[in-house]
């Protein structure tokens, strides 16, 4: 294994204060230096990405009086992929009087993350969760309400209290529009300069500090440099390395990967979350996967035929020839086992050749019993919109024929390593939202992604970035600075290279193949042998990509093929690091399941003595062994336990 990576000095979060956990955030806010309002006007911040984290940070820092430049690759900041989040947002409001508290939200999150998240960060997240709801309501986010006019709550997977606030099945959309509107208000006020259809292609680091970014104007192809006193990346997750995921088509790793190449450590890259209830792949042309709310598992029964390769109409398969495998294997929780367990079980039965639908990658989620028990109207009232969505996509009527579902990648817990201030290992480079690794450990709980994005953007970053900016403004630099020139040249050369290969395979065909490798060997279940094989395959594919990819057109135009090509090129490098990370972590935890490390019942088995740390990776070159820096995780407030769902 040592040939694949080397181990460097351990790393530590220097910013988190010690003392009682409930006082740490207050303590840090007090110890962080401030920038007085008059000086803020002299300081500039670049924020890349306009999802929940990026838009809320840009709006808040703009309100504070800093000069903000905000960038997004979409045609409008409102399209960032936070918009697609369905379920809800957690907050420890205890409006239900059901025993919820900040401490309980903290506890649930650490436990749900399978004890691979930092206590201090998670506690702070739980603390500010309360303020997020207040802020969003004040902005006009139309959360669901009860007849008395007060906010409604629902419960969500893995917890026993009702603390999830929601806006029908479109909570992400409503929260993002709230942040987007706050952002546009600052654009109108002149504190934020918005750059849409601009994609970050590199980070500018001068004298060891992040000082700007290189972007491509996606309409004209112009390569621009933008400078600032600090750079914030809010560019989301990298689930699209799997090609098929629930991420948006444009979601990519480029911004954080380029920062990683410039010296920012990448933490826990192999921690990915795979959601069990997605609409399965219907053919090779498939471009993305669509999530269906997990709530379907409350009334639907999951099964596959007992016989291999049974292609009969599901309605013709008699009861005794069906295998309700979750009910069989987990009698206590049945169809309601946690996401990772349900996902793995589905994969296992499909691997046995008992999967259903095109390609045999699917299992039935059957509502026939529920319809018999509750009546069709009751089922429709509860799940009507989901059934409609299913029918629109598959053309099958789920009231008549059982739904087919299959797991899909939808969130990445890993990301750039940050300290308590959300600053990466490059001074002046801050990373927020899904792009950082900080709060979810090895597994994220439902309705916590929205909470973290907004916590980082509205409340955490605006209170910590000033500690760094208090040393600014930094020395002025321009495009003639040697380090800037070199970075710009690097970007140009890479684009020219991509355009000049003129090979025989399309970008998508490479991406699809990369995704297949990752899904097969670095997906729901990982083995030493598989991961080693994957690394070899990825390296070969990467070489082939740079030899044989075909990118049409020129740089100086709107060129969507070129955009995809440079994103896929970065995925090719990330994929290798993910496999190395997965390979080195010889334990199972949360979303990371190593077949070699399981309990007798087939559950994830952690090795806390060896692996209770964050793996922060340092880049050394493409195909070169990265350096592992371990950040030890200490638990003072939560006791580490094994999960059980029998």
């Amino acid at each position: 294994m040592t040939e694949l990576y080397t181990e460097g000095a351990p790393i530590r979060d220097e910013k988190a204060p010690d003392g009682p956990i409930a006082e740490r955030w207050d303590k840090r806010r007090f110890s962080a230096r401030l920038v007085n309002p008059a000086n803020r006007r002299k300081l500039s911040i670049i924020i890349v990405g306009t999802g929940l984290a990026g838009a809320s940070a840009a709006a808040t820092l703009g309100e504070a009086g800093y000069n903000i430049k905000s960038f997004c690759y979409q045609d409008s900041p409102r399209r960032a992929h936070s918009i697609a989040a369905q379920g809800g947002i957690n907050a420890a409001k205890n409006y239900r009087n059901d025993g919820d508290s900040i401490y309980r939200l903290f506890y649930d999150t650490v436990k749900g993350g399978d004890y691979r998240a930092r206590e201090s960060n998670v506690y702070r997240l739980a603390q500010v969760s309360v303020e997020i709801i207040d802020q969003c309501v004040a902005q006009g986010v139309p959360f669901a309400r009860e007849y008395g006019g007060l906010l409604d709550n629902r419960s969500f997977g893995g917890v026993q209290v009702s603390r999830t606030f929601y806006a029908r099945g479109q909570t992400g959309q409503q929260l993002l529009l709230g942040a987007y509107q706050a952002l546009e208000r600052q654009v109108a006020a002149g504190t934020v300069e918005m750059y849409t259809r601009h994609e970050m292609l590199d980070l500018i680091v001068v004298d060891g500090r992040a000082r700007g970014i290189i972007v491509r104007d996606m309409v004209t192809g112009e390569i621009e440099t933008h400078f600032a006193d600090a750079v914030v990346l809010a560019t989301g997750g990298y689930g699209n390395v799997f090609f098929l995921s629930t991420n948006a088509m444009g979601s990519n790793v480029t911004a954080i990967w380029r920062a990683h190449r410039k010296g920012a450590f990448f933490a826990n890259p192999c921690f990915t979350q795979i959601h069990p209830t997605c609409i399965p792949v219907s053919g090779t042309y498939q471009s993305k996967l669509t999530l269906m709310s997990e709530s379907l598992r409350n009334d639907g029964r999951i099964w596959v035929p007992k016989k291999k390769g049974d292609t009969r109409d599901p309605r013709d398969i008699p009861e005794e020839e069906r295998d309700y495998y979750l009910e069989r294997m987990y009698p206590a929780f049945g169809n309601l086992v946690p996401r990772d367990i349900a996902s793995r079980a589905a994969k296992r039965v499909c691997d046995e050749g008992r999967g259903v639908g095109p390609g045999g990658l699917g299992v039935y989620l059957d509502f026939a019993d529920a319809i018999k028990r509750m009546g069709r109207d009751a089922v429709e009232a509860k799940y009507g919109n989901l059934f409609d969505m299913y029918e629109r996509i598959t053309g099958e009527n789920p009231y008549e024929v059982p739904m087919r579902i299959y797991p899909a990648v939808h969130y990445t817990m890993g990301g750039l390593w940050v300290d308590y201030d959300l600053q990466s290992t490059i001074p002046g480079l801050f990373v927020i939202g899904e792009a950082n690794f900080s709060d979810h450990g090895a597994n994220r709980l439902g309705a916590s992604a929205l909470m973290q994005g907004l916590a980082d953007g509205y409340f955490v970053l605006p209170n910590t970035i000033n500690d760094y900016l208090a040393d600014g403004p930094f020395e002025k630099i321009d495009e003639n600075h040697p380090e800037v020139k070199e970075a710009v040249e690097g970007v140009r050369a890479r684009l020219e290279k991509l355009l000049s290969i003129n090979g025989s395979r399309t970008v998508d065909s490479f991406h699809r193949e990369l995704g297949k490798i990752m899904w097969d060997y670095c997906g729901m279940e990982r083995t030493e042998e598989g991961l080693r094989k994957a690394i070899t395959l990825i390296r070969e594919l990467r070489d082939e990509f740079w030899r044989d990819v075909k990118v049409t057109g020129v740089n100086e135009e709107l060129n969507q093929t070129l955009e995809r090509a440079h994103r896929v090129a970065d995925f090719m490098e990330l994929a290798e690091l993910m496999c190395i990370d997965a390979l080195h972590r010889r334990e199972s935890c949360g979303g990371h399941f190593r077949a070699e490390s399981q309990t007798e019942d087939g559950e994830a088995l952690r090795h806390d003595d060896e692996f209770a740390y964050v793996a922060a990776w340092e880049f050394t070159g493409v195909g070169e062994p990265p350096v592992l820096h371990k950040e030890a995780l200490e638990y003072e407030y939560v006791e580490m336990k094994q999960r059980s769902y029998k």
Partner: protein
Amino acid sequence: MRITLRVWRQKSRDDEGRMVTYELDDVNENMSFLEMLDVLNEKLTLQGEDPIAFDHDCREGICGACGVVINGVAHGPEVTTTCQLHMRSFKDGDVIEVEPWRAKAFPVIKDLVVDRSAFDRIIQAGGYISAPTGTAPDAHSVPVPKADADRAFDAATCIGCGACVAACPNASAMLFTAAKITHLGMLPQGQPERASRVVKMVNQHDEEGFGGCTNIGECAAVCPKGIPLDTISQLNNDLLSALASGKL
């Protein structure tokens, strides 16, 4: 199935543009409309031709990035976004005509990609509630009647795709503007800026070069999120009372 596509090709903003015909023999009815375009683009790329540019991102009907006029109808024959339209809505042998949104305020950038930044500027003009971070009172301090909250939500589901403009014979963006006016106007938090908001947003709407509303209703009929036509009535109501009250 076999499909003949006639697609608007335009190299750049200043290019003339024209309809170009393509044939596809191996279309699967379970493909989404955009996946069908992906397949065509793969083919074009391998032939060394420029693939068709079109905006798209989430492909689950919520980001609002995609949207083309299919056979003269914004988002095509089903009331949904283009990404959620599937080829089973067409027949073997169909000729499908694909064009970009057309409006002066939405200039074509390339092929089927248009510039919708006018929508952002309408929001900038007043489509928000001024609530700086940290100033908010407890979320439960102001109850909101469920009926108001629900109506606000219905209007707030607008995805800003621009189909309303593409479908409107006047190329008016009234439904988009009205959706935001109604969303914020129904909530107690939106009251202080209600009068100035509607005036500023409508002024910006007109300045962007969108046409005026003549209540034809095509916008609501193609809206993938079903924003109701009465939001425009709400906008008119708010505008009249704002002008009458004079407190702008």
